[in-house]
């Protein structure tokens, strides 16, 4: 597992039913591209997050495939419909098999 991986997500606390909200996510990750060389000229092996998904109450919002060309600390901003109160689940899949998740609740009112 890569060191110090911390997901950060910003979701509004409440929305009206059917409203479209904007979600911002950031996860601290080195995203080693596999192209760089260390001081001795050896290739540093690739180590990136290769997939990110966001679901709301089990329904998919966005599913992103990441390649090494995504910057360090992958950031995403996207929009989601909120049909009812519930929970957003954010999942990041690391090359080494680690899975990082975060959840955010939202109320409708």
């Amino acid at each position, binding site marked *: 597992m890569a060191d110090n991986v911390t997901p950060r997500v910003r979701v509004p606390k409440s929305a009206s039913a059917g409203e*479209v*909200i*904007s979600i911002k996510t950031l996860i601290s990750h080195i995203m080693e*591209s596999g*192209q*760089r*060389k260390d001081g001795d000229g050896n290739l540093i092996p690739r180590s990136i997050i290769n997939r990110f998904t966001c*679901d*709301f109450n089990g*329904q*998919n*919002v*966005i*599913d*992103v*495939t*990441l*390649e*090494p*060309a*995504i*910057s*360090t600390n*992958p*950031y*995403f*901003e*996207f*929009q*989601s*419909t909120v*049909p009812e109160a519930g929970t957003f689940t954010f999942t990041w899949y690391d090359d080494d098999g680690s899975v990082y998740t975060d959840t955010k609740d939202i109320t409708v009112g």
Partner: protein
Amino acid sequence: MSYTRRDTLLIGLGASAAAMLPIGALADVAGDIAAFTGGAAVGEGGITLTAPEIAENGNTVPVEVSAPGAVSILVLAEGNPTPAVATFNFGPLAGAQMASTRIRLAKTQKVTAIAKMADGSFVQASSEVKVTIGGCGG
């Protein structure tokens, strides 16, 4: 100046090596596009790619793609060692078919976004980004 037989051979080798390099990268781009579209024709319009004209730091270049009615959007950077950048697949709850992120660009190049629409058609948009400092280490 007259060329010896050995010089001629070397020049020929150098020229063919130089010719091979860009063709290899371009074939890779074409392969990525074909894998995404399945060989279908790619139209224009209906997709917006927002990228800066000049990026001082190729390590984090903010880009935004938006294609109302798209099922998925593929982003390619043709001048990178591996052209594929990201694929966004939109689920049933996506509020709008847009996403923004930050990407790495190795050098000044054209960034392309291709969207697959709900009816199975494809559209693309491109943007030229000037990069002052490349973002692939070295």
